[in-house]
């Protein structure tokens, strides 16, 4: 278990160096995307068009932030992670096509994403569920917002972040998935617990 500070754009090599249980902090550019932004980006890609942001080497954040406009500036009020499993539908294609290097969210992701991360070189960074103030503090600036027509939580918020974390590497680029490991251990512990409870 090691701690790394990564600056975007993050290279494939840096990513392949990481193992599950490592802790990372990200500085540079990060953007939020939930279901609808994932879908739209992939549709554009299919049509041969580009999304409004060069995503290679960046971190995508599963988050629907609360954002407030002060004078002419957007300010992040809260930016906790949302449950990532909803993006399992899109993430493998997303990683493949856009070469994002870190996917940030909570709750973990499934085998399709794990495979894509191994193949194309990306990791999943688990951010503490609900830790909205910690996340907001690491956001130094809202660079811009795209696709605002999707609504505040679904829009693509492009953020400048400094030491965003701690993110626990829960899926690495070698096919390891910490959430899956924990689930298997829980399954293993089941009989022992039943025995202890006498059920």
């Amino acid at each position: 278990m090691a701690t790394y500070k990564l600056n975007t754009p993050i290279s494939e090599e840096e990513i392949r160096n990481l193992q599950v249980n490592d802790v990372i902090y990200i500085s540079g550019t990060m953007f939020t995307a939930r279901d609808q932004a994932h879908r739209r980006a992939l549709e554009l890609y299919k049509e041969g068009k580009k999304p409004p942001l060069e995503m290679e080497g960046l971190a995508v954040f599963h988050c629907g932030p609360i954002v407030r406009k002060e004078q002419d500036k957007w300010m992040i009020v809260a930016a906790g992670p949302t449950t990532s499993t909803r993006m399992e539908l899109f993430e493998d294609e997303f990683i493949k096509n856009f070469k994002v290097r870190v996917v940030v969210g909570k709750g973990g992701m499934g085998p399709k994403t794990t495979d894509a991360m191994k193949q194309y070189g990306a990791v999943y960074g688990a951010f503490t569920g609900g830790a909205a103030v910690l996340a907001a503090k690491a956001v130094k600036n809202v660079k811009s917002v795209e696709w605002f027509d999707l609504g505040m939580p679904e829009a693509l918020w492009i953020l400048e972040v400094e030491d965003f974390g701690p993110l626990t590497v829960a899926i690495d680029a070698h096919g390891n998935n910490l959430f899956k490991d924990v689930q298997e251990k829980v399954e293993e512990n089941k009989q022992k617990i039943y025995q202890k409870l006498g059920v």
Partner: protein
Amino acid sequence: MKIETLVEDVGVKLLQLAVTKLPQDVKESLQQAYREEENGAGKTQLEAILKNIDLAEKTSTPMCQDTGVIIFYIKAGAQTQNLDKIEKALSKATIRATKEVPLRPNAVNPFTQKNSGDNTGRYVPFIHWEIVSGNTIEITVLPKGGGSENVCSLGMISPGTGVKGLKNFVIDTVMNAGAKPCPPNILGVAVGGGADIAMKLAKEALLRPLNESNPDPELAKLETELYDAANMTGIGPMGLGGKFTVLGVKVDYAHRHPASYPVAVAFQCWAARRASARIHADGTVEYLTHKVM
């Protein structure tokens, strides 16, 4: 001051306190978990939680973006006047707090999917009433997050299996919930009554301070047993592994119908927000869960 104005002001204050500052017992329990957690990933999560609640407190911002659905519990002294004004006052307090704190609007019409925008709506905020003797009004607010609510579970298990069945149901529910309710959690467990009563008691049990053990020694024993079992699962903080899956288990019960054995499990997340105050007959207000300058 008129009772409705006083209750409204206290309601706003309670909401603000609840979402920005955890009660001391929860904070201490999280600190202890951090000290004792041996799993690296789990410990990292607990550290982040502690930093987050510290920042929230210092900046008076909600500790989690999901400020929940608002529920009030009231113990109304039978001698108190104007109790009929309280519901309206707390609804107003909720609207005000939504703007002032701010809270995330979380009241959605289940048919039209329209969000009311101010955290009020049909039966929202919900108020649980209890009439007690005396002339004070005690108000507790429980802002209840969605992530932990979604894994609450009710089992109408076979009475033949009894307490064994209860234990089995609780532990299976915890294992199925996994990382979803943002562990470490507090579990409210209640048995008996009927489907509605079991769940009501389970949720109310979440209001009991973590450092108070059950006055009934048998139930206290059951709480410890379930606590140990839940923490043996290895789910850990945020489901990343570790020994702190729960911070506490609180058990309650009601007598049951001979043919039924309802078991309810209510989950609370690490953001175990609650705040209480007592309003005295002379208009003085005493905050019970938080220090107020």
